[in-house]
């Protein structure tokens, strides 16, 4: 399978061209620490050595070795060019080989190691993917994955869903506040979910400033979990946030793009909240390298954030992507209209990837939410918004058709029957115990974390920003 296919198709679509070689394609200028003014033409010569190094002959005729331009993944994200050239950079920074290297260094207490401890966050979609492929229960798959990462040296293994409640509660509050501003602020609704980095990447690169105000500023569960872990865990693990590797197990490569955003750098502007994103297809490669069968893995527990936490695994009710639309509708119905919604059914509109649900009062639709998966439905949503047509109050937008259960880096079966695979995953998902969001519990957790913080501090912890990316038009890249 080509690497690119593990990204969502939306990210692949923004890949403009992988035909032009990188030196032509990349418009990122090399940073030079020591800028020498070249005043007369022809006073600088650059030679390419046999080993591929670039040497500049200065005015005095002395050779100076030139620094190679270092291009980070984030530079590539800031560029409106291709994702393809970002891939190689990305694989270099966050791939499973680097992760295994880190595990080995920690196990051997190697002096050159960059991190002291590893904390792993397991999200539900990869667990379901392993459960489905290896025909074990989701609980067993979760226990086996936990055992694998402990074996590799993880000090703690958490469920990302333990943090998801904080994210959903924040989404609910954010929506209600924006809904109340509807009459005075044209961009307050529709509110568009922000958890899918493929969608964010597309919105920033292709639509930019007009659409960004609509996107919820609440961080994704991955980023909230990581900020929490880096804030609170170093103490307990007797290390520093910068030496604690946070590893997230996620269903698609787009999450790697998210982890690399400079918005998610900590106060020192160097330490990332998430250090590694590892996906199911990479876990399979890790197992292969360790020569271990998934089914032969031991079982291990998953750590709890607080003593108050229920010792069983359960996930927010709603879609396999995280249940954003369902929670927002339920929360807003209660908060704005004092209506308690029991069971919410989302009705398909044109296809199964665009589904809607409403709150009606006296025959009037007072709240409308939708789940919008996949690029074609995102297109129609965005174009309707652009033409100022009525859409919904809140939309859970996910780049992949069928949402995160169908993430680009989930395990595929040999039979390649995507539809059967997906319906099996959806059945598994419906079987896991669900809970309505317990706001008190989420608030307690949030209080334990941010109790004494100012509002600004709180917002910094739970929210983020988006940036429009200017399109570059480089005549060299135009192909007819």
């Amino acid at each position, binding site marked *: 399978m080509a690497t690119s296919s593990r990204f969502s*198709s939306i990210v692949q*679509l923004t890949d403009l061209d992988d*035909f032009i070689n990188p030196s032509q394609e990349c418009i990122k200028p090399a940073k030079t620490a020591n800028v020498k003014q070249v005043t007369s033409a022809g006073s600088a010569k650059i030679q390419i050595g046999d080993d591929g190094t670039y040497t500049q002959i200065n005015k005095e005729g002395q050779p100076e070795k030139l620094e190679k331009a270092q291009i980070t993944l984030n530079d590539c994200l800031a560029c409106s060019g291709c994702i393809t050239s970002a891939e190689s950079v990305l694989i270099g920074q966050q791939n499973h080989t680097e992760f295994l290297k880190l595990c080995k260094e920690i196990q051997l207490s190697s002096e050159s190691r960059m991190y002291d401890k590893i904390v792993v966050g397991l999200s539900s979609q990869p667990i379901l993917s392993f459960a489905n492929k290896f025909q074990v229960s989701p609980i067993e798959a979760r226990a086996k994955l936990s055992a694998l990462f402990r074996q590799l040296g993880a000090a703690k293994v958490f469920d990302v869903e333990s943090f998801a409640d904080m994210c959903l509660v924040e989404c609910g509050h954010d929506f209600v506040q924006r809904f109340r501003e509807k009459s005075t602020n044209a961009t307050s609704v529709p509110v568009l979910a922000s958890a899918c980095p493929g969608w964010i990447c597309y919105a920033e690169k*292709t639509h930019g400033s007009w659409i960004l105000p609509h996107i919820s500023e609440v961080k994704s569960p991955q980023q909230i979990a990581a900020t929490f872990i880096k804030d609170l865990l170093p103490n307990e693990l007797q290390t520093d946030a910068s030496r604690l590797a946070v590893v997230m197990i996620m269903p698609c490569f787009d999450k790697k793009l998210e982890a690399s955003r400079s918005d998610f750098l900590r106060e020192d502007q160097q330490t990332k909240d998430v250090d590694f994103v590892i996906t199911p297809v990479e876990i399979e490669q890790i197992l292969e390298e360790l020569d271990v069968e998934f089914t032969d893995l031991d079982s291990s527990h998953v750590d709890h954030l607080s003593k108050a936490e229920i010792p069983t695994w359960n996930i927010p009710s709603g879609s396999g992507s995280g249940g954003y639309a369902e929670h927002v509708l339920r929360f807003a119905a209660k908060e704005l209209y004092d209506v308690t919604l029991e069971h919410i059914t989302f009705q398909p509109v*044109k296809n199964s990837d665009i589904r809607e649900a409403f709150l009606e009062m006296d025959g009037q639709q007072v709240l409308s939410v939708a789940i919008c998966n996949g690029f*074609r439905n995102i*297109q*129609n949503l965005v*174009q309707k918004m652009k033409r100022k047509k009525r859409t919904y109050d809140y939309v859970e937008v996910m780049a992949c058709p069928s949402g995160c259960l169908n993430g680009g880096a989930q395990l595929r079966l040999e039979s390649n029957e995507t539809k059967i695979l997906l319906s099996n995953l959806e059945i598994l998902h419906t079987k896991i115990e669900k809970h309505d969001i317990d706001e008190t519990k989420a608030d307690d957790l949030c209080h334990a974390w941010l109790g004494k913080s100012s509002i600004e501090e709180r917002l910094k912890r739970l929210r983020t920003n988006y940036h429009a990316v200017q399109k570059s038009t480089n005549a060299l890249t135009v192909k*007819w």
Partner: protein
Amino acid sequence: MARLDELCKLPGHQGIVWNVGWNQEGNILVSCGEDKTIRLWGRNVNSNDWVCRSILSDGHQRTIRSVSFSPCNKLISSASFDGTCCIWDKSTSTEGNQYECTATLEGHENEVKCVAWSASGSFLATCSRDKSVWIWEVGEDGEFECAAVLSAHTQDVKKVVWHPHQDIVASASYDNTVKMFCEEDDDWICFATLKSHESTVWSLAFDSTGKLLATCSDDRTIKIWKEYLPGNEFGVATSDNMPTWKCVCTLSGVHPRAIYDISWCHQTGLLATASGDDAIRIFRIDPESDPNAPFLEQLITVPRAHEQDVNSVVWNPCIPGLLASCSDDMHVKLWQFKG
């Protein structure tokens, strides 16, 4: 002896003319090009000469690469390098031949290369340098909704055409392949990839039955592909209960340069090609030849049909043997085949 007589040369475009197309009645010709205009050509009532009846402008910011009439004849669609498609509507306008841009289809990342209506009129297909093929559904309210974004090609997609009777779209690409798509459940899928050309496939055309497809390429060949249904009597293997499209004829050594367009006349069965050697050529399938290995017979070559590259050729849907062509030389020409 077969002849292709030049009927007229139509000047007007201020730059390369990229594409020509007929309305369903065959009495209006539409052309588009580098000058960002669409021109409608019809016969002058008194003199019977072909004249420019109207010019549509102000729809696109860059070159217009492709233009076509809807099956209902009321709408014209145009595709541009500005990344959009425009829908031009006649009904809302007061004057006889005046059209107004009533919808802009946005979504492609960059240059849109072609736009085509399905025979049923319910769908529109577009393709782009961004490597994707998009299917748009025409709503009752005149709204166009994206029904699929198909990323099957690995390079620039040059052309899309619809099957004459079914909702099947075929696309030609810089990745040297042709792909075919159809609707399955509530999504569109690629059900066939036609591999044989050794360079960019520039254009393609179905015959009147939709059972044969002609493709032309930068590799200077024409290929004929035949549809073999599951369980066919010739033992051609099929998979997933889908037809197999097999290359049954390759014509090489005739075109010295790239072949940019091919048109298959649904009345006469004649094939016309537009080539980078400024020539127009006419072929037909030898009726005596084996249907599973047809022979393409060259009838005519018009060596200097235009002064520069011929970009597009299209047979009139009603008048047998009437052919329109356009070129880098800024001209549109009309030709009559006499057999």
